[in-house]
């Protein structure tokens, strides 16, 4: 009896109060005691990088929708009967994460400079978040606090674009004023210079968008934004923290930027870092070199034609330029061409020749820019080249374009911008005397300014497949360009194996049906006269996606608001033209 009483007493006293049932997680933080130190702020702001940086895929494949690229099949948005039902719900969790930080970070126990630095990081990412929403949807609701479940603001309608963009500008200005200056040689964190460079990108976007999208009636405010863009870019240029990576090797300097494991931080300002030792890998080499894994991206002939000759002359000024054999058209071109697509003499790291592969591309302009040379990576997702998200080269182009749009571009500015880029590419940087008729005919008939045409050419070539082209078309109001046929290399005849890399052995043959006895090493490309065609019937340019009806009506400058989002909040207004 004694034992029992004793043990009952003991256990009861152990558990007599509610404290016994009070448990706090021992492996997690609790908000009440967080946001107390600078380290806490850093710990939290790291989540913005984690959650918001694009994947390697997103950072490189977005241009698959743009005018200069062909893929397996156009998106439903371009060639299908896209509607607000197809549009997925929008996601706002990253904004909530940022706004929660901004609602809680301001602890006076932390030095003001540090608080402002991290608030700057948060506001930088909030601008990033909103610009992506504005680019897709135009008007969107603005929120700067984390909403509660019964918040009326959950059900408000969109705020006008100019209100939202004004907030974005405020965020970017705050970021550019408060984020710390120190250069990050790993190119992985947001510094003041990165914020400025990003501001130049966004301000240029907004300025040109307003200028060319006259239906918004905001053209009058375009110059303010263009000036902001030019000034921000100028600040980066004047700071001298970054410069173009130019070691005097024009045939490799450009591509080095895209296939290096460590960001070339002389030029690359911000990047998605990959690392073999840390097994931070992506699958881009595989995707760009696979019949099935990727979308068989390829550049179109019309765009390839815009690459200049190394002497600075225009390829399109050559007689019969459009019907040259692949091996001939590749010779003596802007060195960036052979660093962007597989060209003459390209070899893998084991020395094996690697002509453009018609199993991996449809046009023959097989994108090389993001692929590492190691063949092993064609079949395994272990590529480790760091993906630049912001380069100094873009800052030069932003500056040049903003200046040109403001009418303030001249030969002096040319030398500081386009000239430098062409020099690095081993192209004679002489200023052209006239507006390029080819560019005007095929791309920009409405532009007469030779500088602006050259800037746009340069931007297309220099930033090819860096996920900027589609938005460039949007802000220039050139969406119609995506309707352009997907034109490939010139094919003189069917059933005649062709050499592509200039080593004399045949690499591809265009046939109506795969022959039963195939020649080793030759890829057979079936011309079925449905999805694939030759422009002249049995000869001419390869045309892929011939059966597609790509169309870009004005409504497509914006995506529809998802039907499901309107169901949840009927006060949202559908974008014009969509239902």
């Amino acid at each position: 009896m004694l034992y029992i009483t004793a043990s009952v007493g003991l256990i009861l006293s152990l558990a007599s109060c509610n404290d016994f049932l009070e448990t706090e997680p021992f492996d997690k933080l609790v908000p009440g005691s967080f946001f107390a130190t600078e380290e806490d702020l850093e710990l939290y702001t790291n989540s913005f990088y984690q959650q918001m940086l694009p994947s390697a895929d997103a950072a490189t494949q977005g241009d698959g929708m743009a005018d200069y690229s062909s893929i397996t099949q156009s998106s439903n948005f371009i060639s299908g009967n896209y509607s607000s039902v197809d549009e997925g719900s929008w996601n706002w969790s990253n904004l909530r994460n940022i706004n929660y930080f901004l609602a809680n970070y301001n602890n006076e126990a932390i030095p003001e400079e540090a608080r402002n630095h991290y608030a700057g990081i948060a506001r930088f990412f909030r601008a990033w978040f909103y610009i992506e929403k504005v680019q897709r949807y135009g008007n969107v609701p603005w929120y700067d606090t984390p909403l509660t479940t019964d918040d009326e603001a959950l059900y408000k309608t969109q705020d006008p674009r100019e209100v939202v963009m004004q907030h974005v500008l405020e965020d970017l200005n705050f970021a550019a004023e408060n984020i710390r200056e120190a250069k990050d040689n790993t190119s992985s964190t947001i510094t003041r210079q990165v914020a400025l460079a990003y501001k130049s990108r966004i301000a240029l976007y907004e300025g040109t968008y307003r200028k060319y999208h006259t239906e918004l009636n905001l053209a009058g405010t375009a110059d303010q934004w263009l000036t902001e863009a030019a000034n921000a870019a100028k600040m980066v240029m004047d700071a001298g923290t970054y410069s173009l990576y130019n070691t005097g090797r024009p045939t490799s300097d450009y591509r080095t930027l895209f296939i290096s494991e460590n960001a070339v931080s002389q030029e690359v300002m911000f990047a998605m870092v990959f690392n073999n030792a840390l097994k931070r890998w992506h699958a881009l080499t595989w995707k760009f070199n696979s019949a099935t894994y990727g979308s068989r991206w390829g550049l179109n002939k019309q765009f390839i034609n815009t690459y200049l000759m190394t002497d600075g002359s225009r390829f399109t000024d050559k007689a019969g330029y459009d019907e040259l054999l692949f091996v001939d058209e590749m010779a003596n071109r802007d060195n960036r061409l052979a660093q962007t697509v597989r060209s003459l003499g390209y070899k893998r790291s084991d020395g094996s020749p690697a002509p453009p592969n018609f199993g991996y591309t449809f046009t023959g302009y097989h994108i090389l820019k993001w692929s590492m040379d190691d063949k092993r990576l064609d079949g395994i997702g272990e590529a480790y080249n760091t993906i630049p998200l912001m380069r100094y080269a873009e800052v030069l182009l932003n500056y040049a374009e903003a200046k040109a749009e403001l009418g303030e571009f001249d030969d002096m500015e040319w030398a500081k911008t386009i000239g430098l880029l062409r020099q690095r590419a081993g192209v004679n940087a002489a200023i052209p005397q006239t507006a390029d008729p080819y560019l005007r005919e095929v791309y920009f008939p409405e532009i007469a300014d030779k500088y602006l045409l050259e800037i746009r050419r340069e931007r297309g070539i220099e930033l090819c497949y860096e996920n900027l082209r589609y938005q460039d078309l949007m802000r220039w109001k050139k969406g119609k360009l995506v309707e352009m046929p997907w034109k490939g290399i010139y094919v003189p005849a069917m059933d005649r194996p062709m050499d592509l890399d200039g080593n004399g052995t045949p690499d591809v043959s265009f046939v109506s049906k795969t022959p039963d006895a195939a020649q080793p090493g030759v890829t057979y490309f079936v011309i079925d006269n449905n999805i694939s065609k030759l422009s002249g019937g049995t000869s001419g340019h390869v045309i892929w996606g011939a059966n597609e009806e790509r169309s870009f009506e004005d409504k497509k400058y914006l995506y529809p608001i998802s039907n499901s989002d309107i169901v949840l909040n009927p006060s949202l207004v559908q974008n014009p033209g969509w239902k």
Partner: protein
Amino acid sequence: MKVGVPICLLAGAILSFPFLGEAAATFAARNKEQAANSQQQTTLSGRVLDGDGQPVQNATVAIQGTGKAVSTDENGRFVLESDRTDATLVVSYVGFETKIYQVSGNTSDIVIQLDGKNDLEEVVVVGYGTQKKINLTGAVSQINSEVLENRPQPNLTRMLQGTLPNLNLRMTDGSPTRSAAFNIRGITSIGAGGNAMVLIDGVEGDPNLLNPNDVESVTILKDASSAAIYGSRAAFGVVLITTKDVGKGKPRLDVRLSQSVNQRTVVPNLVTDGYTWAKNFDDAFYAWYDYKTHPITVNANFPFSLEYLERLKNHDPSQGDAVYNESLGRYEYFGSTDWFAALHRDRMPATEASITASGGSEKAKYFVSGLYYHQDGIFRHSPDDFNKWNVRAKGEVHLNDWLTFDNNVDVSTYQYGYPLLANGDAGIWRYWAVSGFPIATMYNPDGTFTRQAVEAGASFVDGSSRSDYDRFFVRTTPSVTAKPFGDLVTFKANFTYAKTFNKDKRYNNYLYSSDRPGQTARFGNSLYRTLSDNTTYWGSNITAEVKKTLNDAHDLGVLVGYNIESNRWDNFDAQRDGLLVPGKPDFNLMDGLNYNIAGGGNEWKYLGVFYRLTYAYKSRYLLEFNGRYDGSSKFPDNQRYGFFPSASAGWNISEEPFMAGSRTWLDNLKLRASYGSLGNGNVAPYRYMETMSVSKTSVILNGVQTPYTSIPGVIPDGLTWEKATTLDVGVDATLFSGRFNLTFDWYSRITTDMFTAGQPLPNVFGAAVPFGNYADLKTNGWELTLGWQDQFDAGGTPFHYSVSGSLWDNQSEILKFNNPTKVLASTYYDGMKLGEIWGYETLGFFASDEEAANWADQSFLLNSNTNEYLAGDLKFADRNGDGVINQGKNTVDDPGDRMIIGNNSPRYQYGFTVSGNWKGVGISAFVQGIGKRDWYFAPEADLFYGPYNRPYGFQPKIMMDDYWTEENPNAYWPRYRGYTALGTNRSLGAPQTRYLQDASYLRVKDITVNYTFPEAWMNKLGIGKAMVYLSGQNLFTFSGLYKHTDNFDPEIIENPAGDMTNSHGQGDAYPMLKSYTLGLNFSF
């Protein structure tokens, strides 16, 4: 149908015949000898009567120590010859206590009266105690140790399947470590979820760690009334596993030895001839691409061309199946590799040895047991061996006549090592589906692995990548029992401390493959991981029980108790890449920069006080009240405690005076009803708190992957307990002196306030809508158990036999759920029956291309690259007549052309046992199954859809003879096209009536034949008892599934889970095993 001749069983029987014959001969000779030595022959005769003085027919009357026995005739009479007049008779009959009768003097007209044993006197384990079955008012089922005997298995869960009505155990594969959730009575909650609480000797535990030979009984408490005493964790029933009691009296030693041979129940029947396979692959691919494009690779990494196909056809086998092709500069393969056969073993031995000792005096008693179980793995080269050890020691000391102290210690451990793929953990079976092409080979001519081999499991050959899992569990429960006032009051107090350690060491090593001589390519990882965790538990129960009978009519019982528990789980994982020495995985021998350490854990605590009040009036009217006041650390302050009462009542009609006339045949008839409501405390710890996790970024910032934290989840609004309210009515009947018994229960369980997502908010909210108590569910079901046991005379010796079985069912319906538009997208809606399958109505195949062209627009369901439908493709009914086959708005009100075509919930589950015993030879069979279940295979069920899923996938042999062609328009499968079952938006992958499968099955889980050697004979050898048995498990299976596929075990059709699977590909899982066992049991 799946009826294999059990060759081993036959062989075993034949082999054992001479032995048995010899034994019988020896036995007969001995009898003769005894007879010869007899000095005096006496005839013993008399009658056997039951408690009411009625004669008992077929009772066995035996003379102890001689092996002589006869059965009584219809008047209960027996006549026996004996060599002595003072013989001891042993009289036995089903339903009665075995009676020992000492003959003295009178040798004729002996009258032996038997006392009823029928299971009314049987004692059933209930919460914190036991109860006579006749006094039970709740829904309780129990099995005893004999159900588990002589069925060597790696774990108890497997053995319990089908043995208890409405204990639903779904074994998703055949892995020796695979467990199953213990579900009682169907779907519990779609919110917090929850299963039955499993208690081993009163404390929560893992039944898989238990030594099955230690188990005395397994009881399930199914209704709220029986379970209420366990409070919030018992909302969905309780499983009580009780280990064997300490012995008393003479020391006793039991030794059990068995040797088994395991085999896979199903070996997939697939095309493995290289050329045939490659041709079929090409055809499937070509058809999907509208007969325009032939493949250039097989699944993107194995080169393919028509010209290669031609050479494959004409390949000269004498050249070998891997040949270096000069002009291509690489090896070419001409294999006919059966990857299943190459890596699996066909027969795997398993051994079990166990020993149990018990004994003691009135003052002190003991029970000690040990078990070793070993099962050889199914893989040929790098086998997945399983070893298990158990030790249990129980002791009891009677300090004085009212105070007892006892302790129960359990130490259990198992180790399971299994091969991994070089590039991770993922499932080997799935890899064979997408990489194990018959045309590929394991080796190149120079002995290096091929590229395909490293992907399809070469690590299973060289054993360089493995997981070594080790589980260790120790538990001790000391307790005291005090009866200071005689039998009136019993105090019990116990304290349990338990610790579990789990450690999994996983290592992957690079494999090297070669495409051409002298070249190697690396595949996989060089990675070492330890995943470890430990759990510390302590808990205590204190109860006081009072029992009192007043005026010989009123039985009163009061039990009150107190329970406290605390549990802490700590996790520790570490990983690093770069093994310096492949065979020595240790963190000291590593150089990689990629490493990660993760901790984590949680704790929970419970406090509760509980009671049980029982009242019985002359065993006729029974009343019982249970209740518990429960506190849980998992709930916020204001919701921390809950009170859960229940009540039940019973009426023993047969005890009523007006039923006196039926006593001769009706032993017992009882009606029961119970009602109660229990809170479901199964929420995760900290669910109601705002917490911020810290993890390592995957992105690299400043050269490192750095920690980060982010916004806490929005906490639930006013979180409270889910409630499960159960109404149960039941009837128990026992007839014909215990020969027949019946138990039937009907129940309705309504789970309310289920913890599900709240009303959807606009997405600008930016977080998952907080969960709350928003949904209701109803589960109705019933259980029927019938049993018959009897014996009859067969050649002068009684033949005992029994048949017993259970059939049960349950069905669940959503009563309330936040889905006002009744969207069908993998969510619930009001009125939904759980498990329902929405699909199209298949009309058959198009007879011609014209018919296809003129039919409704079926383009919503992809059928080819350019979405063309031709003759032989599937034709769907345009049920809503809009000229388009689609899913409409995908809501209940507008499902397009879909309808409910079936339900994948298992229905009408059953288990039954037939056994017979004659002259020491016993035979028993245990059958288990599901009476009704529809199944629509998910698209990646590669063993079912074969090339229709992916052209390079498996090619089931019976499918390849049964698809549509112009010559074979009545085939089962449509026009042969790859990729049409790649997703549910494709013509074959979309659920539809034609390919709905009948997944019901009947499985002979166990057949055992045993022979108990005559006791007298064994006594001479100094052995108390000896038995030899042959047993076969999972030998025969019948299933509706076998109509169109022979590649599945009907129990392995769900998405695979656990080790060696990657959750894709239904059926791509560790195969179910059948086994043949020869065992010997001795006791001394």
